[in-house]
């Protein structure tokens, strides 16, 4: 999946996978923090967004 996205010009850090059990709230928060940080570093997604004229 990551490879496919890279091929399409989307940064691999825009997709994340994880496994968290329903008791692992700490891990949940940790993963959210990590992902949010990585995505903030990348900046807005521009590469694959459909480019249609949007009515303002």
């Amino acid at each position, binding site marked *: 999946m990551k490879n496919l996205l890279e091929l399409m010009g989307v940064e691999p850090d825009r*997709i*994340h996978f*994880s496994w968290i059990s329903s*008791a692992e*709230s*700490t891990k*949940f928060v940790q993963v959210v923090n990590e992902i*949010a940080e990585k995505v903030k570093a990348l900046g807005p997604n521009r590469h694959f967004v*459909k480019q249609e004229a949007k009515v303002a």
Partner: protein
Amino acid sequence: MTDWEPKIVSFLCNWCSYGAADLAGVSRMQYPANIRVVRIPCTGRMSPKFALAALREGADAVWVSG
């Protein structure tokens, strides 16, 4: 762009990560307000099409968690 906040479309399994997210709430843990949860019955329901659709529609990232 200083106040830009990314939108992360998050596909969470009803039985696992969705429960963890609920529990994080019960425990009043704090985390960034960037995720938007789509509840799915099981990660088996997840299809690559959903991830692509989210990115195409302008999501800044996709997160799939079982």
